[in-house]
């Protein structure tokens, strides 16, 4: 029992960070209808920023979100303007836009690989190797703080969507793009803004993954596969779904890792993806595709 609770703790504390990673992906999908395969590649850009901020200026990786989030927000706006703005309104082109995000992921990976080479890196703030002990259990401090920060950001995002005028407009665009346009939402500007927010969330995730995982430019493929399975489980476009999916799969992966060894842990996500697509393709909280 003790053993199981310990695994649960480890799973949940990593799940919060996965939820943050997935939130940007699902938000962008919800508003624009595009699966952004470059999401994790953008996390890598932020990871490198956080890494060098730590190495050169000893900036704490969690605090580095004050740099990575605004930087990635601006990157998101620019990328949206240059690549997506003209095509996103055209539903026929959305399928092709997924290929564009794939190309974007490859480009980012290649550029990062060229600049920084594909060696393993990570930051090691003091808390990264410590643990909080309570009774028979331990809580890795790094995971704990990262999850706390992730949850804080997710609550902030939720409140923003729920209570602000722009939040209303974003949710309206998610529900029904035409209806939003008809009541006077500038859906192009909303899409651009959401792409920026999604990238800023990728930025925060990138900052925090630097001390949770060792990373290198092509690591993003691993993440994007995991994120897709979480988001599909929760229901594409649903924030709450992404949170539930992240916690659920992270806990399951922790148990699989404990039972069968860490090499099997990533397989959990891919298997889950298969099962979800077969059994409930719209995910836990997703909407059934309408006619």
């Amino acid at each position, binding site marked *: 029992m003790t053993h199981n609770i310990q695994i649960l703790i480890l799973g949940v504390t990593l799940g919060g960070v996965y939820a943050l990673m997935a939130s940007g992906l699902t938000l962008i999908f919800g508003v624009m209808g595009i699966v952004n395969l470059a999401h994790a590649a953008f996390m890598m850009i932020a990871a490198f920023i956080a890494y060098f901020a730590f190495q050169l200026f000893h900036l704490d990786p969690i605090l580095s979100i004050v740099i990575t989030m605004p930087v990635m927000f601006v990157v998101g706006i620019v990328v949206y303007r240059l690549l997506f703005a003209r095509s996103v309104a*055209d539903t026929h082109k959305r399928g092709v836009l997924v290929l564009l995000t794939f190309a974007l992921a490859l480009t980012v990976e290649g550029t990062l690989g060229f600049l920084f080479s594909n060696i393993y890196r990570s930051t090691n703030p003091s808390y990264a190797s410590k643990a909080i002990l309570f009774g028979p259990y331990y809580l890795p401090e790094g995971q704990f703080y990262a999850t706390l920060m992730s949850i804080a950001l997710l609550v902030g995002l939720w409140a923003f969507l729920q209570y602000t*005028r722009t939040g*209303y*407009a974003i*949710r*309206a665009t998610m*529900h*029904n793009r*035409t*209806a*939003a*346009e*008809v*009541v*006077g*939402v*500038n859906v192009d500007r909303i899409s651009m803004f959401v792409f920026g927010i999604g990238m800023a969330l990728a930025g925060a995730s990138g900052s925090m993954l630097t001390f949770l995982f060792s990373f290198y430019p092509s690591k993003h493929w691993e993440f994007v596969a995991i994120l897709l399975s979480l988001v599909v489980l929760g229901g594409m476009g649903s924030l709450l779904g992404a949170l539930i999916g992240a916690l659920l799969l992270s806990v399951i992966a922790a148990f699989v890792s404990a039972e069968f060894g860490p090499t099997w842990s990533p397989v959990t996500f891919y298997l889950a993806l298969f099962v979800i697509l077969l059994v409930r393709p719209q995910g836990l909280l997703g909407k059934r595709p309408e006619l």
Partner: protein
Amino acid sequence: MPLLQINDVVAGYGIGPDIITGLSLAVEADRSYCIIGPNGAGKSTLLKTVCGLVQARSGSVVFDGKPLSGLRTDEILRRGICYVPQDRSLFPDMTVRENLRMGGYILRDRHAVEKRIDEVMEMFPILKERRAQLAKTMSGGQQQMLLLGRALVLKPRIIMLDEPSLGLAPMVSHQIFESMNVLKKAGITIIVVEQNARIGLNFADWGCVLDLGKMVFEGPSQTVLDDPRIEELYLGRRRRRTGAGG
């Protein structure tokens, strides 16, 4: 001077062919209009062009003496033209009240919007009754009523409705048109596209018949209803074998 003047407009989607091929219409403020015509005649495209969802390729749309060309939907909405699409375009996971609130999205003054929502609810008691309900849980007729209410929040000069009776039972359709009469009495100019030509023309003062992107015929509703060509083509009566045929 007409409230809305559509001058020789040509419009279509993306790189596709012209759907509207040179159409003119003068909309007077104190009339209501019903647009009928076969599928593909360009009825919906006409409304979308006026409200800025589709950009005219040539020609002009002038509202209240000012051209609307190049304006976005939200800018046209601000001028006072509101469009209600045919696909029950509500926000399904928002409540009735939140949907109405979205109707006033372009207004910055929240208190004014809330006050206006209360007024709209007085006009449509069913919306007041269901204010806390999610839009997706309402019946088709109630959803259409909510769309009307949402359009009303802004007090527009013109409301354009695209097939409000689509998919509704005949009795419910009649209720919707009765509600539209309320709007008419409130001094709003209504332009409605309607498959059910009879109910649409009975409601409106003026009928417009479109085919292949052009205005074929327009006139007072009763005249349009009585015109033999219209009867044959659009009202589904048995065709007589005289004349030039279809």
